C-alpha cells in the first residue's frame, strides 16, 4: 500500500483544496475511484459550476443535488453530487424553523432569496453542512469534498462562533440588538448608519433584510449547535485535508495560503498532490546517436528531462516555503497529453496516484 493510500484508508472525510485549474476535481474523483476499488462506499461532493466532475465521471446528464451512483469497477461504490447551495440552505431553514409558518416566511423573503445565497461564506458553510449530513448518511463510509477554487473555500474552518455566517454577520449584529429578553430588531429610521446604507443600496433591500432577520429570530441556537457539530467533525481524526497544486508558482502560492489557513485552525495537511507534472521517460543513451533521426529524439528526451528537473526542483523549493512539514507525503502526478473527461482517463489518473 502506498503512503497516499495508507493516509486515506482510515479517513471518513477527505477535503481537497487548491486553486483553480490544477485538477482538483479530477483528483477528488480519482480518490473516489480508489475508494470504490478497495471496497468502500464513497461519495464525492463538488461545487464546481463548470460541471467538470460530471464530465470527468462521464455522466452525460450532469450531476444534481442528490447523490448519483456511478458505474465504476470494484467491490465498493462511487456516488457523486453537485452541491446546490440554495436547496441546501432551504433545507436547513426548514429543519431549524419552529414551525412551517416561520420557514415559509423566511423562504419567501426577498433578502433571503436574492442575497442570502451570495453573502460571503454561505456557499462554504452549506458545503460543510452537506458534508456533515453525508457523513451521517448510512449509505456512505467516505465523503470526498472538491472545494470551490477560491480563497474563501476554507471559510467554514473559522471558529464555531463564526461558522454560521448569518448569526455573526455584521449586518445581523447591527440590526439585532441583544437585550435581556433576546434579540430585538432596531428601528432603521433612528440609526444614521443604517439610513446611510439604505441610501447606497436602496431602502427596499434594507427593509427586506430587517424582515429576514426578524423571521430568523429564535433559530440561531439550532444553527449554532449544528455549526459546532460540523467543526467537531472537521477536527476529528477521521478527516483529512489534501492540498492539490500544479508545478507552477501561482498554484503553490495558493497552496501556501490554504496550508496557513489550516494551520491557524489547528488542522494539518495530510497529503499533497502535484498534478500536471512533466513526465519522466527514463535515461537517454550514454552518447548522442549519430543518425539524424535518433539525434533528434535524443535532443527531445534530454530537453524534456531538463524541463522536468527544473520544474521539480523549483516546485519542491516553492513547496518547502508553504509551511507544510517535509514529511507530509507528496505525490507528483505526470500530466496526460489530453484532457481528463472520461472514466478511462480518470482510471489512468487513479493508477498514477495510487499505483
Amino acid at each position, binding site marked *: 500500500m502506498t503512503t497516499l493510500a495508507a493516509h486515506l484508508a482510515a479517513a471518513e472525510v477527505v477535503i481537497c483544496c487548491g486553486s483553480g485549474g490544477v485538477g482538483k476535481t479530477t483528483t477528488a474523483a480519482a480518490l473516489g475511484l480508489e475508494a470504490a476499488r478497495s471496497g468502500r462506499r464513497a461519495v464525492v461532493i463538488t461545487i464546481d459550476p463548470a460541471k467538470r466532475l460530471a464530465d470527468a465521471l462521464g455522466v452525460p446528464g450532469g450531476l444534481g443535488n442528490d447523490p448519483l451512483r456511478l458505474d465504476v469497477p470494484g467491490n465498493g461504490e462511487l456516488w457523486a453530487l453537485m452541491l446546490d447551495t440554495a436547496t441546501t440552505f432551504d433545507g436547513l431553514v426548514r429543519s431549524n424553523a419552529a414551525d412551517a409558518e416561520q420557514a415559509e416566511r423566511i423562504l419567501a423573503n426577498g433578502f433571503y432569496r436574492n442575497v442570502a445565497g451570495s453573502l460571503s461564506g454561505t456557499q462554504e458553510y452549506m458545503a460543510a453542512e452537506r458534508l456533515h449530513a453525508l457523513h451521517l448518511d448510512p449509505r456512505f463510509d467516505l465523503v470526498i469534498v472538491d472545494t470551490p477554487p477560491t480563497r474563501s473555500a476554507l471559510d467554514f474552518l473559522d471558529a464555531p462562533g463564526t461558522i454560521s455566517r448569518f448569526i455573526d454577520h455584521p449586518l445581523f449584529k447591527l440590526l439585532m440588538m441583544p437585550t435581556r429578553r433576546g434579540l430585538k430588531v432596531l428601528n432603521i429610521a433612528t440609526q444614521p448608519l443604517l439610513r446611510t446604507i439604505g441610501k447606497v443600496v436602496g431602502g427596499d433591500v434594507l427593509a427586506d433584510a430587517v424582515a429576514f432577520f426578524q423571521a430568523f429570530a429564535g433559530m440561531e441556537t439550532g444553527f449554532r449547535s449544528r455549526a459546532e457539530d460540523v467543526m467537531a467533525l472537521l477536527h476529528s481524526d477521521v478527516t483529512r485535508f489534501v492540498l492539490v497544486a500544479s508545478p507552477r508558482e501561482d498554484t503553490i502560492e495558493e497552496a501556501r495560503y490554504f496550508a496557513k489557513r489550516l494551520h491557524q485552525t489547528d488542522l494539518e495537511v495530510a497529503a499533497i498532490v502535484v498534478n500536471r507534472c512533466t513526465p519522466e521517460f527514463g535515461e537517454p543513451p550514454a552518447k548522442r546517436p549519430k543518425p539524424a533521426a535518433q539525434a533528434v529524439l535524443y535532443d527531445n*528526451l534530454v530537453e524534456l528531462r531538463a524541463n522536468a528537473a527544473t520544474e521539480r526542483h523549483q516546485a519542491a523549493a516553492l513547496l518547502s516555503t508553504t509551511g507544510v512539514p517535509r514529511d507530509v507525503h507528496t505525490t507528483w502526478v505526470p500530466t496526460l497529453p489530453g484532457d481528463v473527461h472520461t472514466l478511462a482517463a480518470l482510471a489512468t489518473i487513479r493508477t498514477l496516484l495510487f499505483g
Partner: protein
Amino acid sequence: MPPKRVDPLQFLTSSTVAIVAGKGGVGKTTVTAVLARAAIRRGLRVLVIELDGKPALSRLLPDVEVLQLSATAALAEYLDTHGLSLVTKRLVSSGIIDVVATASPGIDDIVVLGKIRQLEQSGRYDLVLVDGPAAGHAITLLMSAKSMRTTMRSGPINAQAADAAAMLADPTRCQVILVTLPETTPMNEAVETAFALEDRVGVHLGPIVVNGVDAGPALPADAAPVGSPLRVAAEFRNTRRLLHEAACRDLGDMLALPQIVLSHVPGARLDTASVEALADELDPR
C-alpha cells in the same frame, strides 16, 4: 482556418483599456505581463491593474506601474468621494461594506469599472491593462454596468454605471483579451465566454491568446525501439503537439478572432527573462 497574423502595435493601441480574462490557471497573469512588456517596448505609457489581490506582476514587471485594485477599497473610495466620508471608516472596519456590496449585487463591480474608467480618462496612460478576474466573474463584472442601470434608475451609481457602459461599448476605449489553454475544457469555456461577452455585454473582443502551446514538427518516433525512453518521450511530444495544433485550429473554427499563440514555458517559476522571450514571440525584435 489558419489564424490571422496579429500586428501587436495595432491591437495594443486600438483601445486604451484592455481587460485580460480567462478561467483560473490559464495564465492570465503571464499574458498580462507579456502584453505589458510588448507595449513598453513600443514606447507606450502602460499602467497594469491587478484585481483580486494576488500580487505577482510587480516582480515580473519591475519597471512598470502596477496598481492593486480591490473591490472593497474601490467601494470605500467611492463612498468617501460621494459625501459619505463620515461613515466610510466604520463601514470598512465593521465589515458592513461587504454587506453593502452583497446586498446590492454589482455595486462593487461598478465602482471597480468606475475606477478603471477614471484612470483611462486621466490621460496619463496609452494602455491600461487589467489582469482580470476569472471568466465567470468577468461576465458579471462587465455586465454590472448594464444591470446597475436598470436596478438603480437615478443617483450617483446610475451615473457611474452609464459612464462605465459607454466605455465598454466603445471599441476605441476598451477591449477584452481572452486567454485560454490549448485543451478542450478551457477552450470551450473561452468560446462560451466570448459569446456571452459579445451578446450580453457588447464589449469589443481583441485577439484571443492561446497560452502554453507546444508547437513544432512531428518527431521521427519510429527511429527508436518501441517502449524505449527515446521513443516514449517522442510519442508524448508528438501527441501533445498534435493536440495543441488541433486545439488552435478548432478554436479558429469556433471563434472568428485573431489568435496570439504563446509557447509553453518550462519550469515552475516564471521570470522576467521568460516574459521577455514571450514578448519576442508576440513582437519579434
